[in-house]
């Protein structure tokens, strides 16, 4: 019933039809018990009403229509946002909402080029040490105050303030000097040229006039953000939803969609039911949902489905300090013995690509021309023989009498990874390697096994930034406790390449450094790179103007629109009384 209320655009008819339906419904129930003879008639009457309202529902959404202001998009999130000051939060729900309320100085365009956001333009000094940003004039905060370079300065200062509990200080601690040249010019200077510097300024700029001199951790902006972005914060009903409204004087033009709602639906099965019932307009799907459970006519009539490559990969990592995995040939042999195609077809139902290295194919730094490990038992066996392993009469590989076995760790709750582990276990058994699988809760996996280097092999995934700086994961200096090179990868050439690339601004040169870096990683096989999964999304058909691109779908969100005759929600629906 509920969604029917929104289907027509005129207010009066909505409340009318809903009221009359409720009435007939109760009427039917009373009368059927009292007058059994007429009950059939009333049921028919009720069905007629039901039929009428259903006919209204079958609007055709195929007409692209004309862009118009209005309607609401409803998203859903498993977890509730924690804190709408993006500096202080690390969860995706918070960043998703804050990303629509705040702007950075720069951003990625649809092809992943860096373009100005709050910055009109920028200059990188000849020595590559400083960047001067020229900021857009006439940008206003949602409360009407003008945006200036002082806001950028404040954001920088509060980020590096030791009292701010933020996870994002590292990039900004490299800044030697930050200065406000005039109200709309801001300059930062670094000690050494730092290539990821430019994109680090995509960080959300905070309003100085509301925060300076106050404790940011207790600021009201945590629950009621005030930004410069395309959407203005309206309301947060805890545990239920967050509501944003279009910023009518957004500097890139008013968004067509009037309202943005993020519902909190903590159960993924419920979320999928809500999608089928049109209670949610946009949702990420699992491979099974994408390929099977949404393949019925009514769903296809109401929703468009999209798939695109994201920025993440899943891998099997070896502890390079552990006996057999010190030998490159063993790692290569295991890479050959695992059938990636089988994993992608069997587990992801084809919704992924075979991984070749630590960068994804949609990144500019990607180099696909590296050593590839197609499934080959012969090559695997030959390499293992080289490394001194002999097959015993029981079919198990042995070296100096001891069998080749290791434990493979996976985290609980991630079905895809657990299934991968099972397929890998079977393939390795064919070669003669015994892999035991151990499934562990996330926190203890990290604290007891990874941090203490108490593992042999592990299946994990990385989400990466389109800006390729592999320093944290692959540089040999990053092997400390809680640091990310936990497999203890050390390679002098890789260290040099990463450092050089980090301090070079010329993209062609950097691309060469990263190309070589990827060749070495592929050759050394410290990870078995398994797959790059596709992101799969369903969006209601009334939203037009969606352009899938390298950067995903969200890059032109403010240009999405709903033609007037296909609108579902009134302007001020969704707010609590």
């Amino acid at each position, binding site marked *: 019933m509920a969604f029917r209320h929104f289907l027509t655009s005129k207010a009066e008819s909505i*409340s009318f039809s809903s009221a009359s339906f409720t009435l007939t419904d109760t009427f039917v129930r009373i009368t059927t018990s009292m007058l059994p003879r007429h009950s059939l008639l009333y049921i028919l009457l009720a069905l007629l009403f039901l039929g009428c309202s259903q006919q209204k529902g079958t609007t055709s959404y195929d007409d692209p229509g004309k862009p118009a202001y209005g309607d609401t998009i409803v998203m859903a999130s498993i977890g509730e946002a924690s804190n709408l000051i993006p500096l202080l939060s*690390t969860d995706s729900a918070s960043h998703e909402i804050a990303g629509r309320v705040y702007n950075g100085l720069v951003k990625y365009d649809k092809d992943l080029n860096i373009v100005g956001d709050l910055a009109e333009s920028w200059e990188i000094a000849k020595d590559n040490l400083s960047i001067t940003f020229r900021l857009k004039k006439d940008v206003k905060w949602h409360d009407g105050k003008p945006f200036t370079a002082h806001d950028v300065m404040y954001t920088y200062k509060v980020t590096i303030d030791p009292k701010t*509990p933020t996870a994002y200080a590292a990039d900004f601690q490299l800044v030697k000097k930050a200065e406000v040249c005039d109200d709309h010019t801001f300059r930062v200077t670094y000690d050494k040229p730092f290539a990821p510097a430019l994109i680090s300024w995509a960080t959300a700029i905070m309003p100085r006039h509301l925060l300076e001199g106050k404790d940011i951790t207790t600021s009201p902006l945590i629950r009621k953000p005030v930004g410069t972005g395309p959407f203005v914060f309206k309301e947060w009903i*805890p545990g239920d939803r967050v509501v944003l409204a279009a910023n009518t004087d957004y500097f890139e033009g008013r968004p067509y969609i009037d309202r943005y709602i993020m519902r909190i639906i903590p159960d993924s099965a419920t979320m999928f039911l809500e999608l089928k019932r049109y209670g949610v307009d946009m949702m990420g799907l699992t491979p099974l949902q994408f390929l099977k459970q949404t393949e019925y006519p009514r769903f296809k009539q109401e929703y468009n489905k999209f798939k695109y490559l994201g920025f993440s990969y899943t891998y099997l990592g070896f502890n390079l300090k552990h006996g057999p995995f010190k030998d490159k040939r063993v790692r290569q042999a295991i890479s050959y013995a695992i059938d990636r195609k089988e994993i992608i077809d069997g587990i992801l139902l084809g919704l992924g690509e075979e991984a070749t290295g630590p960068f994804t194919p949609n990144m500019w730094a990607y180099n696909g021309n590296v050593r590839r490990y197609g499934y080959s038992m012969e090559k695997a066996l030959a390499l293992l023989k080289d490394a001194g392993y002999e097959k015993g009469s029981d079919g198990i590989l042995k070296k100096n009498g001891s069998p080749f076995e290791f434990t493979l760790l996976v985290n609980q709750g991630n079905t895809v990874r657990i299934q991968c582990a099972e397929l890998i276990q079977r393939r390795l058994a064919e070669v003669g390697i015994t892999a035991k699988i151990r499934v562990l809760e996330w926190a203890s996996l990290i604290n007891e096994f990874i941090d203490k280097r108490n593992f042999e092999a592990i299946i994990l995934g990385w989400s990466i930034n389109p800006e390729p700086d592999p320093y944290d994961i692959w540089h040999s200096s990053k092997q400390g406790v809680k640091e990310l090179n936990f497999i203890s990868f050390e390679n002098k050439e890789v260290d040099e390449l990463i450092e050089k690339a980090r301090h070079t601004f010329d993209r062609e040169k950097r691309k060469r450094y990263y190309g070589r870096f990827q060749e070495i990683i592929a050759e050394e096989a410290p990870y078995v790179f398994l797959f790059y999964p596709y992101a799969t999304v369903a969006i209601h058909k009334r939203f037009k103007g969606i352009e899938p691109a390298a950067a995903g779908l969200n890059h032109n969100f403010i240009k999405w629109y709903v033609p007037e005759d296909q609108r579902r929600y009134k302007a001020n629906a969704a707010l609590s009384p």
Partner: protein
Amino acid sequence: MLRYLLKRLFFMIPMLFGITLISFVVIHLVPGEPGALDADMNPKVTKQVRERIRSFYGLDKPLHVQYWMWLKRIVKLDFGVSFAPDRRPVIDKIKERLPVTILINLLSMALIFLVGIPIGIYCARYKDSILDKALTSFVFAGYAAPTFWIALLLMMFFGVYLELLPISGIKSFNFSELSFFDKTADVAKHLILPVCISGFGGLAGISRYMKNSLLEVLRQEYITTAYAKGLPESMVLRKHALRNALLPVITILGLSIPGLIGGSVIFESIFSIPGMGQLFYMSVMARDYPTIMGILVIGAFLTLLGNLIADICYALADPRIRIG
């Protein structure tokens, strides 16, 4: 009676401290730290950042010092500030989630008692009849079947297939535009499935209690006497048997008071109801110690209070306890 009450109240204090001490220690022994779940494996979190966050929350101090600090605040009824990134006072977080949990629990409790007691009475009166067996199977099916499964099936049937009831949440999006009548209808519609399903699971307990205690009473000699002096059956049942048989049921009512503020995580997640169960679960997953402790203290207090009330009700209903 008054002395008994005071004594009970006095003994509640050490019990409450005992509960808090044990919960505090157990919660802190779990591996992982606040924010650790978010910050682990995040390339941007350096060691210094982690230390900074630790000292910010006071986690670098030994456990007994942390407990002492917490205790000093709690005696002033200050539940502290959440460790979650929103940094809100714990009491606010609990307050905004308590009403909906209490509403649903009250409704489903009422449903359980209103349906469960008659079922129990019927089953006792017509013991071993076919309907008795059918009802028993029905209530046990409710007890045994996993809530989430039934919930999903009913959501699919009433929500997606029939499109009669909303699937999740407690209010529609156009709630603010509805008239008062429609608003009530809207909330009621949203509550039908959650209340029925949570009530369904609780029917078995209460109907069984009712049935057994009524059977027990019906075997007594004074019931035979009542029949013998020619009273109609309904009178015997209502006036003589039921009054005595209701005693254990009253105890259960008292014992379910602490249950009123607790909610089931699975259940609340499935229906997207922002209640206490979810708050507690998320606090545990995020190792948000102040919120966990806040909920536990309130829960412990209510449990003790519920026991006390049950005892008092018992005394009120049964003169033997009151006098003796």
